[in-house]
Each structure stands twice: as C-alpha cells, then as structure tokens.
C-alpha cells in the first residue's frame, strides 16, 4: 500500500515541480507549486509527521503561496512580459543542474552506509503532542527567537513596501 502511495505522490510532486519551472505563465507556476506542496504534505503524512503535514498545508500551500499569488496579481504580470534567456545560458544552467544531480547521486552511491533503511510510519515523534513537548522544553529559546525573526521580517516588509516620502512627492 505505502509504496504505491509514495510513488504516486512522488510522481505528482516531480511533474508539478517541472511544470513550475517550465510554465510560461507565472500564475500557472504558482498553482503547480501548490500541487507540489500538497504532495509533499502527503509524503509527510506517509511518514506519520502529522504536525508538519498540517503546518505544510497551512503555511506553505496556504499562506506563502497566497502571498505569491497576491503579488503576482498586484504587479499584473503575464507570460509575455518575461523575456527569455539566451539559449546558451539555458544550456549551461541545465547542464550545471544536471551535473549537480549527478554529483548528488554519486555521493549517495559512494556514501551508502544507511544500515536499516526502513522509514517506519508507525512512530509517535511526528505527533503534535510529542513535538510540542520537545519544542517547549529543549527548543524554547530558538522558538522565541524565531518569533523575533518574524517581527523583524514584518517590520522589514512594511518598511520596504512603504513608499518613501520623496517618492510620494514626485
């Protein structure tokens, strides 16, 4: 059962990821990225990481992608506004990406000392109850600091998004 689900989800993720890259229209890219995120969320569920599954859907597929979509709409971009890169650059870029994947797989082959390769899906570490405990005991300080990061990010975004007085005058 689980290999089938894994394969299905994996294929959906890869295909939609490809579509993200190759879609002409950025809106299509956004939509297919959402699909990818959902399939990744599915994989999380497969590994019994329930908390991350929820967060993935809410934060990524929900909040972040909405933000992207929002900005796209705001700037009113469409497919034909984006100029294409030169073919030479495309070839070099694809080649280097390919080389990178080659190296990754090579690394995997050489460094394959995994031992028990099973990824069990019947464990409790991914549950909200368990993670919450760890988060608020061992990782309390990072957690609080991350809230400061959010605050900083918020301030930064507001500051950047605001028109400077000079601009508004002109």
């Amino acid at each position, binding site marked *: 059962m689980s290999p089938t689900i894994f394969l299905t989800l994996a294929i959906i993720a890869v295909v939609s990821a490809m579509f993200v890259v190759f879609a002409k229209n950025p809106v299509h890219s956004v939509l297919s990225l959402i699909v990818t995120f959902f399939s990744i969320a599915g994989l999380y569920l497969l590994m019994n990481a329930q908390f991350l599954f929820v967060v993935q859907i809410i934060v990524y597929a929900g909040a972040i992608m909405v933000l992207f979509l929002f900005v796209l709409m705001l700037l009113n971009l469409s497919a034909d506004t984006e100029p294409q890169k030169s073919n030479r*650059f495309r070839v070099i870029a694809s080649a*280097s990406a390919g080389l990178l994947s080659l*190296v990754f797989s090579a690394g995997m082959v*050489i460094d394959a000392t995994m031992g028990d390769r099973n990824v069990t899906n019947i464990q409790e570490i991914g549950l909200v109850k368990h993670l919450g405990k760890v988060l608020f005991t061992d990782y309390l300080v990072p957690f609080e600091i991350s809230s400061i990061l959010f605050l900083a990010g918020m301030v930064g975004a507001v500051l950047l998004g605001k028109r400077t007085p000079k601009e508004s005058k002109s």
Partner: protein
Amino acid sequence: MEKNLILIPLLPLIGFLINGIFGKKLPKNVVGALGTLVVFGSFILSLLAFLEVRESGQALSHTAFTWMQIAGLKFDIAFLADQLSTQMMLIITGIGSLIHLYSIGYMHKDEGFYKFFAYLNLFIFSMLLLVMGSNYLLLFFGWEGVGLCSYLLIGFWYQNLEYGKAARKAFVMNRIGDLGLMLGLFMLLQHAGSLEYKEVMASLSTLSTEKAACIGLLLFVGATGKSAQIPLYTWLPDAMAGPTPVSALIHAATMVTAGIYLIVRSSALYSMVPEVLEIIGYVGLATALFAGLIAIRQNDIKKVLAYSTVSQLGFMFVALGVGAYSTAMFHLTTHAFFKALMFLGSGSVIHAMGGEQDIRKMGGLAKKLKITHLTFLVGTLAIIGFPLTSGFFSKDEILAKVYEHSPIMWGLLLLASAITAFYMLRMFFLTFHGSFRGTHDQEHHLHESPISMTLPLMVLAVLSLAGGFLNVPEFISEGSEHLHTWLNSVVTYVSGRHHLDHSTEWMLMGVASALALIILVSTYVVYVSKKSTAAEDDQLTGIQKWMNNKFYIDELYQSVVQKPIEAISNLGYNIIDRGIIDGSVNFIGKSVEVAGNALRRIQNGNVEYYLLYMVLGIFFLLVFKFVL
C-alpha cells in the same frame, strides 16, 4: 691670560651677534667702529698671549667645555696658544683689524654695511677657532666656518647671479677638500682615539708608514682645497667677486693660508713620510708655475692678484715639500703683509676708478693716487723680491732650502719667481704709469681714498718693507733667525738634512736678486718707456690665448665633472627613477589592474550569473568531497 684665551675668538663673535642682530638699526659709524674694535681687542689679547708665551716658552691652553662624548671618544672645545698659533693669531687679528678699518671707508656707501661687518667678524671668529683650537676637530670647525664666511662674503652682492655662482663654486670646491680632511681625521681618530694635537703626536710613534702616508695625503687634499692648489685652485680667482677687503683678508692673508697652517701643525706626521712631502712639493711647484703663467695674460687687476696669490701659495707648499716648515710660515707672514697691502691698494684704485677693474683702462694713476701708488710700489717690490724687502728674505729662504733639496726644483722655482716679477711689474706699470686710458668721466672722478683706507695701506707698507727682518738668514747675521727659533719647539723637521755652506747661499741670493732687478728694468722699458699696453683679447694667439683663458681649466672641469653629473642627474631621474624603478613598481600595480579587468567580466553585476557560479562552486566542492 690662560683663562682669557677664550675671549680672543669670543670678541669677534660678540661683534658678529651685535652687528648681525641690531646692525640694521645702528648708525654706520657705530657698526664700523664696533666691528673694528672687537677685532682690535682680539689683537691686543693675542699680543698679550704672545708676550706670555714668549716669556715663559710654554704654550697656553684652556678647555672651555666638552663638546661631546661618545663611545669613549671625547671631543673638547679647548684652546691652545703655542708659538705657531700665536703667530697666526697675530697675523689674523692684526691684518684683520687693519682691513676692518679699511672697510669702513670702502663700504660706506653699501646698504649691506652692517651685514658686511657681521660677516667679517664671523670670519675672524672662525679663523681664530681654526688656529687656536687645541685639536683637529676645532680646526675643522674653523676650517668649515671660514669656508662658510667665504661663501657669504663672495656672494655678498647676492643680487648678481654670477657672484652667487662664484660663491657656490668656492664653497663646493672647498667641500671637496674638506671631505679629504675629514677622512684624514677619521683615520687619525681610528689610530689615536683622540683629535687633541698632543695625543695625536704622542701616538705617532706607533703609526705605520702606509697609514701615515694615507693620512698625510688626505690632509693635503684638504689643504689643496682651502689653499687653492692644483687641482682645486679654480675657485680662488672667481672668488674675486667679493668686495675687495674680503679678497685681501680672506683670499690673500688668512683663510687661504689655513692649508699651510694645517701641514705645519701636522709636521710631526709629515716628517715621518718624506715621500708625501715630495708630492706636496711638486704640487706646489706646479701650481706656482701654472698660476704664474695664467697671471701674465690677465687684465683684471684683482684676477692678477688672485693668480699671484695662488702662485705664492704654491711657493709656500714647495717650502713645506722640502721640509722647511718655518720658512713656509715666514713666507706666509710676509705674503700676508704685502698681498693684503696690494689687494687693499687695488681696492683703493677700484674705488677711485668707480668700480673699473680692467688695467687696460687705467694708467698714469700715480699722479692722482700718491699714497696708493707708493704703498703699492712697496708691495710690488716685496713680491718680486727686491733686496731687503720682506719678500726678498722669505722668498730667498725658500729658494735656498729648495736648492738644498734639488737644484732642478730650484731652477723651476726661480723661473716661477721670475714670472711673478714679470706679471706684477706689468700690472703695476700699466696701472700707475703711462697715460690714462679710461673714459673722461673716470679721469675726472679720480681721487685719493679717505684716511681710513690709506692708513691701513701705510701700516702694511711698513710691515712689507720691514717684515723680512723677522727672520734674517743666519749667514748674514748670527742669531737673527727669530721666527725659526720661535717655531722650533712646535715643529718637527725631517731628520738628517744637510745644510748649505754660506758661499752657496750668498750666490743663490745674488742670482735671485739679479734676476729680479733685470726684470724690473726690462719691464720698465717695455711698459713705461715704450708705453706698450696689454693686447686686446681677440688679438691673442697661440699660447697667449690659452693663458688668457686660464688654459681652459674651468671649461675642462665643467665638461668632465659638472656636465656629466648633471646629465646623470637628469638621466637618473627620468630613466632610472621614473622609468625603471617606479616603472617596475607601477608594473605590479598595472598587472593587478589588468588581471582585475579580466576577472571583472565575471562580475558583471547580474545576479543570475552569480547564482550560476554559486551552483558551479557547490558542484566543485561536492566533487572535491565525494569523488576525489
């Protein structure tokens, strides 16, 4: 007196300070009087010191303070008045005060009057340091000090570029000699560990002959610079750019004799190495002849006197060369009298002529300038060695000593003295006799100089006449070699020299006097009876032209030394400095720039390229980690 020794140089220094600082505001009379009186005061003090030395036979010495102490070496500012120094001191302050007095009249119209007296006082101070120091260091102080004063005084009329050039030339040529002297001092210091005369002389016994010769030659290089000997003599004739009293004081009577003083002072050293003395003798002889030849065809009254000075200094060096130190000192003294006299006389002439110095434009001045004429005549007779004048005795003594040493040198020196007689008389007759050849204006303007100028002339004339009796040869009168005896205790002679018998000495004297008389008569005939005058420059041919142009030595030096150095300077700056060294430094900078330019293509500012490089970088890192 011993404690007051320091006052002797200090008085002129005080005069210098007062005149130099406040002179501008003081009236000219005060400046002149002050300048003269301080030197005269020094003269009185010197006289006292002289008497005391004579009385006791002991040298006076006084240490003022320690100049510096370093690495076990101690240099003192210490003064010494022995027989040799007192003689020099008397000449310097005596003639010095006369010349100061003369300058009051000579310079009274000059706006730099106070400056002139300040410089003169400074000069007297330096010169006194030179002769009074009890060590070579103080001698060197004075040595350079007089060089500086000479520079300042030659360039006294600083607005004239040519004069400035002459001053610089004098200073630089002196400096070449100074370097030699300085190196000599270093070697002495190395050997003796002190520059005090006493200690240096005491240590000579352990000095090797080679080193002694080396030191002797180096000191002599210094002497050639200061005393204008071949090859460093060319500055002295140019130094005539200075005011005439300066020429009389510095470039005839005192400063230029410093070289002789130095060698006499180091006589103990030189007597160890007769070979070096030989060299000194030949250099002196060559200078005496060479300068005499040039003087024959000079028409500037001061230039003639200048070359004559060079030539006479040559005589003195010949005397030193044959080891006759006291004879050299004798000639130094008499020469100081008659040459100062003649320079001052020429000053009086120039004063009367309104600045004209060319003897071709003079003539017949005897009628208008009676005192000048008479005193000048005395000077001329003295220099040509007219019997019983001071020059007669001193020159004769030199000739006798040289004959003792080598008859050939004697012959050449006799020739030089004949040449001297010729050019001096030529100049004398052309100036004072015959008819006036200048402009009408000048003739109208002719007048005798004021008393402040003629008084020194008269005093010096008396000295020039009688100065010879300081040291009348033994064969004439027993026990009359006063100067010789006087200097005996401070001078060390080369041992084992034989003496001439009296008849030879009489004969030598006879030959020299006869020669002088013959030339006197013949020049009188040529220049007075036949009224010949000096030829114009462009009529001269052959050797005469060479003589007139000073054998082109200046031009030679210029093309051999000055021009190449200037060329190297330009070349060095433009090619070596700008080109090679700076070029290579800049090349490093440039190559970095070029490499930077090449690499800049990569940094094209485009973010996506940076991303690509990043990916490639990660790729290579991973390859490095996993594959290699």
